[in-house]
């Protein structure tokens, strides 16, 4: 079954608005990564998290290992934020992250 579930699978935002993406884990995740796959196909590192929160510009991510979920908040969405966002979770003693199916984000003017 799916160890990492992302929601929503697709999202359309108006430029300047805010949104949140979510990952739920059925594994005992100890770390979480968030990536953006741009329209060219490149995977760009956004965050690496142990339980807690991190912020970088308009992006903020949180990871709650007890409740087995992580969120990625996008503030003031810009056109260049469009792409597919992936989360990946890793279990302790099994150093190979598993990915969700992604959230495809389209930001429109």
């Amino acid at each position: 079954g799916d160890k990492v579930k992302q929601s929503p699978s697709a999202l359309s935002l108006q430029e300047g608005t805010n949104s949140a993406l979510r990952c739920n884990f059925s594994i005992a995740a100890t770390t979480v990564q968030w990536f953006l796959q741009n329209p060219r196909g490149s995977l760009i590192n956004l965050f690496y998290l142990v339980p807690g929160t991190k912020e970088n510009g308009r992006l903020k991510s949180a990871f709650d290992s007890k409740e087995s979920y992580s969120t990625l908040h996008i503030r003031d969405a810009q056109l260049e934020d469009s792409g597919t966002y992936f989360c990946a979770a890793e279990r302790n003693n099994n150093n190979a992250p598993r990915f969700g199916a992604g959230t495809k984000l389209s930001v429109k003017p």
Partner: protein
Amino acid sequence: EAAVTQSPRNKVAVTGGKVTLSCNQTNNHNNMYWYRQDTGHGLRLIHYSYGAGSTEKGDIPDGYKASRPSQENFSLILELATPSQTSVYFCASGVRGPDTQYFGPGTRLLVL
């Protein structure tokens, strides 16, 4: 910035043929990974490695072998390619410990 390169970037193979996908990283990372990406599935883990000489099975290893002859190089081998192995393959590297993975640009494989 971590550097991971993959070759070839594009490959067309025939059913039953042998395909080798190569990955090189210049950052002295212990861990390396092979994933495939298909629509609706995200990235699925095929094989990974903790260091030279080690290979581990991921979630979908059937039909694939892996080889890690050195710290820098990690290959994915399809001994008898099938059309179901048509996909985009990504290699990644990472340190053992609290750090993110670094991905290569991907290889598009078409098996006819």
